[in-house]
């Protein structure tokens, strides 16, 4: 088993050290709860429903990179590809609660669900109002009939953006939750991978692919997708992916969407732009408008080579929240 090289110190310490580095790069806007892998805003907004994000590490800049103005308020960070433990989640909820309660955005994995559930129960026992919305955008992970079995992947970023804005603009917890769920229900994503990343503590690739193979529907932890195939030209690949994504919601002529072409890690921006080119050709053909496009490293899978496509269908309400300017380490948008 070939060990993949990393620029790290002790593999056991990658998460807290990376958090230190993120905090340092935030120039005073973010801070860490001492001794815990919890990142929160330095200057919280009073009386706002707090938005907590988080999950396993290794998806940088998700999650902590999206803490900022009109985005999330805090992130509970687990070890690489492992959900945070309930005590970390509890600490995050407590730190983010300004009296108005806390909304967790949770990627829909067994580990994250379970730990967020336990952490939230602990917070509720301390008198904090806590709710959770599960993100389940990966169309490759289960059929539409079992939508609650679907994994959460890069579409998370859109959900964070809408929830962050809604929590900043709306006072009512029910309303914030409703808007967040509406965003969640309008996001669809799918990824592919051509080579694996490796967990620092393991050192070995999380999966093996042949020299000419591609995994269609790959998840952000290397979970297998719908098919393993021979690599095909980008245009053909994107056409196949878009057919699956568009049919799922379904997205229809006249719809307007936000588009995220997300790097799973090691893919070049050049390739992502080639992918974006084809996506836009297809959307144009289908009569689907694109309101905004993000291209780059948003929800990675360590140094996996591959990408995912996420679409969020907008209505006037979602657009209003999506368009709110944001500032954070990973996303600044005016």
């Amino acid at each position: 088993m070939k060990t993949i090289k990393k620029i790290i110190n002790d593999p056991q310490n990658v998460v807290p050290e990376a958090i230190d580095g993120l905090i340092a790069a935030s120039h005073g806007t973010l801070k860490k709860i001492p001794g815990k892998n919890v990142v929160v805003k330095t200057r919280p907004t009073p009386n706002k429903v707090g938005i907590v994000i988080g999950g396993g590490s290794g998806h940088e800049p998700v999650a902590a990179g999206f803490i900022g103005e009109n985005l999330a308020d805090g992130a509970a960070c687990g070890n690489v590809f492992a959900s945070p433990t309930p005590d970390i989640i509890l600490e995050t909820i407590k730190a983010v609660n300004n009296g108005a309660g806390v909304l967790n955005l949770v990627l829909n994995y067994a580990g994250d669900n379970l730990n967020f559930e336990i952490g939230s129960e602990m917070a509720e026992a301390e008198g904090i109002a806590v709710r959770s919305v599960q993100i389940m955008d990966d169309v490759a992970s289960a059929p539409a009939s079992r939508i609650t079995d679907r994994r959460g992947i890069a579409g998370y970023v859109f959900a964070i953006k809408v929830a962050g804005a809604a929590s900043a603009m709306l006072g009512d917890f029910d309303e914030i939750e409703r808007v967040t769920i509406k965003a969640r229900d309008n996001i669809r994503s799918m990824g592919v991978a051509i080579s694996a990343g490796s967990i620092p503590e393991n050192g070995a690739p999380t999966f093996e692919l042949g020299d000419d193979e591609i995994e269609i529907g790959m998840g952000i932890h290397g979970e297998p997708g719908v098919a393993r195939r021979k690599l095909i030209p980008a245009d053909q690949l994107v056409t196949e992916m878009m057919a699956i994504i568009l049919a799922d919601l379904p997205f229809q002529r006249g719809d307007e969407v936000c588009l995220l072409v997300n790097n799973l890690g090691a893919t070049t921006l050049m390739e992502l732009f080639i992918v974006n080119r084809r996506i836009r050709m297809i959307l144009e053909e289908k009569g689907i408008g694109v309101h905004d496009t993000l291209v780059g490293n948003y929800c990675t899978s360590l140094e996996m080579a591959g990408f995912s496509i996420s679409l969020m269908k907008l209505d006037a309400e979602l657009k209003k929240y999506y368009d709110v300017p944001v500032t954070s380490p990973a996303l600044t948008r005016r």
Partner: protein
Amino acid sequence: MKKMELSLQETKEMFMYVAEQMIASKELLTEADMVIGDGDHGIGMAKGFTAVREKLNGDEFTSLDEICKTVGFALMMSIGGASGAIFGTLYQGAAKSLTGQTTFTATALSTMLESGLDAVKVRGKSKPGDKTMVDALEPAATASKACLSLHLGEALSVATEAARLGMEKTKEMVATMGRAKSLGERSLGHPDPGAISTHLILNFMTEYVKGV
């Protein structure tokens, strides 16, 4: 050597032994999770039982439920991932029904497995056949109920064998819970990593008791 029961101190030592052995099983569990999951189960269990060892070592206990609570809390707050919540819940659930007890008997074993199983099912919303650790834990709990009059070592042997058979059966199941579920059919033929851990834990308990 036949022993009817363990003292509090011996029970603590038993969990220390289990912790050592689980840490030593890291590779085996990692490989099992590589095949049908995300490959971190070994890391998680090793991390969890390292925390268990530390917590048990640093504390004095006056009842079984305190020991179980400590084990459960250590697992839950150190592993992360599904197994932290699930195995943590197992011991925390077990603790609830062992309040104030000071000797670990075949009856206590059965109580522990039963109420641990119940707690796991509630927390995990999992049922037998989902290809999880429940498929090893439930047969062990059921078997232990028939062993209340046996020596602890014998009862543990029976429960361990039941867990092993349950774990083996998970090979024939298609995962529906946890990360392995997205594998669907591809998980066929491989045992569930959490079921392997469940069998191993019981097996190491048996080894300790037989060796006392």
